[in-house]
């Protein structure tokens, strides 16, 4: 029978089709493409930086540039008080800033989505209990919590990542729960139940795919805020003093008297780098939202 031979194709084709449709729709959004371009540029630079940045350009003992010099030949963005190139520092800093942002976001999204999904699906005691926990975390002031967490876990990237994740998963959880409740109320959930689906199957096969767009959108925005949080926490001196991140650059510039010295070239580049990456993620997030939200298609 021909039906059997057709079946696999029928299953496969639409998925490609859906992804292709997503890409085509995304390609029509100039702001989204610009954001993606910015992110790709930063990502490639950050990944490739070990190829052209070595220890002798980062180690304060080994560098030989002029100290706290404004932009000159060879140092297009000037130097810091140790004589390192600000341009190279910004590029090098992207590595840790981006990875902290992305890892913290991944933790946030996984934890928040799981809690939100469970709380939305099991609307009885389990759901209520989970939401009580979430509310409790929301009530915690995020900055003092992050500070005390770093104090407990010790300074460094790991504690900053955990501090960011712990304070930001609640927003995702609430968002996902609300969306789960909306999806659960739709008739196709009842149909799935009538077909014999259990809780796990309903959550994985029906609720999650319908909540996914929202999770994607919120995660791009979470990355942006995580990078900002990283900068804030490092600026407050909670980061690893030896590693280079945008936050630590700002902190070093501030501590090294860049403000009083009028060394704008030391303060502005990391700030602008943060701005560009946050902007990039926000633009991508908005574009993804537009493309995935059926009600916005064509607008």
């Amino acid at each position, binding site marked *: 029978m021909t039906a*059997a031979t057709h*079946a696999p194709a029928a299953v496969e084709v639409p998925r490609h089709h859906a992804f292709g449709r997503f890409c085509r729709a995304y390609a029509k959004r100039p702001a989204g493409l610009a954001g993606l371009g910015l992110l790709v540029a930063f990502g490639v630079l950050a990944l490739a930086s070990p190829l052209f940045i070595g220890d002798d350009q980062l180690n304060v003992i080994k560098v030989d540039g002029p100290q706290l010099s404004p932009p000159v030949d060879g140092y297009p963005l000037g130097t810091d008080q140790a004589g390192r190139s600000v341009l190279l520092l910004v590029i090098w800093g992207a590595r840790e800033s981006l990875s902290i942002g992305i890892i913290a976001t991944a933790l946030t999204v996984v934890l928040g989505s799981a809690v939100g999904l469970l709380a939305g699906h099991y609307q009885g005691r389990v759901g209520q209990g989970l939401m009580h926990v979430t509310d409790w975390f929301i009530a915690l002031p995020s900055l003092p919590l992050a500070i005390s967490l770093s104090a407990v876990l010790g300074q460094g990237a790991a504690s900053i990542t955990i501090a960011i994740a712990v304070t930001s998963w609640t927003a995702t959880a609430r968002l996902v729960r609300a969306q789960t409740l909306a999806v659960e109320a*739709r*008739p196709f959930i009842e149909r799935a139940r009538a077909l*014999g*689906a259990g809780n796990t199957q309903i959550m994985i*096969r029906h609720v999650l795919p319908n909540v996914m767009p929202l999770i994607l959108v919120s995660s791009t925005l979470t990355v942006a805020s995580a990078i900002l949080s990283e900068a804030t926490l490092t600026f407050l001196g909670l980061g690893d003093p030896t590693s280079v991140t945008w936050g630590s650059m700002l902190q070093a510039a501030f501590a090294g008297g860049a403000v009083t010295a009028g060394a704008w070239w030391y303060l502005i580049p990391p700030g602008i780098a943060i701005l560009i990456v946050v902007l990039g993620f926000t633009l991508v997030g908005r574009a993804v939202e537009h493309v995935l939200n*059926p009600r916005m298609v064509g607008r």
Partner: protein
Amino acid sequence: MKPVLEVRDLMVTYPPRRGAAPARAVDGVNLQVRRGEIVALVGESGCGKSTLARALVGLVKPTGGQVLGDGEPLGYSAAALKAYRRHTQLVLQDPGGALNPRQNVFDAVAEGPRLHGLTDRLGERVHAALARAGLRPPEEFAGRFPHEMSGGQQQRVVIAGALALDPSVIVADEPVASLDASVRGEILKLILELRDSLGLSALVVSHDLGLAWNIADRVAVMYLGRIVETGTVEEVLLRPKHPYTRALLSVLPDSGERPVLLTGEPPDPAAVPGGCRFHPRCPLRAAEQDTLCDSRDLPVLTGDPSRSSLAACHLVH
């Protein structure tokens, strides 16, 4: 022969909301669907017909009475329910909402077989179900997404999804209420065809008496959690006995009768009146001033299909 689907003295009571009395959505119902039979369950919104339909497919656990599939009482363990669902399938009112917008037709129809481990020759099974539901050629529809189809086609996909499990009975809750008039007839035709070709039984829940006339063999009229009249379509719709059935028929635009408009509060399952539950709105009782109606409860109708029509009314016999 045992009926494919039967309920005995079924009760579904919802817990009270904020100090109100518990809502007796289904309050003692006997009903049988025999093999190859189409039964229409009609009534206004809030009469409990949708709750009854959900109890029949095991989505709502009754607080009393039994649901029987092929004479076997339905158990409510996960395994028993799953087994029962190959026997009884549900078709919902709004096909647009009943399909997951992110699943294509193939996956939507294959869902049932996959859940029940019938993945052997899955493609064949799905295509056969699509073809039986009138989506021909099935290959053309398998890759489509719900939003790429019309309401009628979506409802056919939902029906195909039910057929893919080879059920013996389908419970359809307002299967055509959200469809256009011209499509409505096509879907009803399909249900009749399935009965003729597969011997499929169906319980069709509707507010529309015309639907019962179009496809059903028997009809049960429900009011406030109970069946108040039941019998063959001809008996009930052409020679209605119960004053509620008569009122429902009289307000149809084509009835040719003077419409009997029922007044009074809309029925509330949290405050079922004593005596005959219809008495506060009953036009007959108003005329006769019969105290029997206010005070004496009526027995639950037996729902025996072999008897001629039954009406739960003190004044009709």
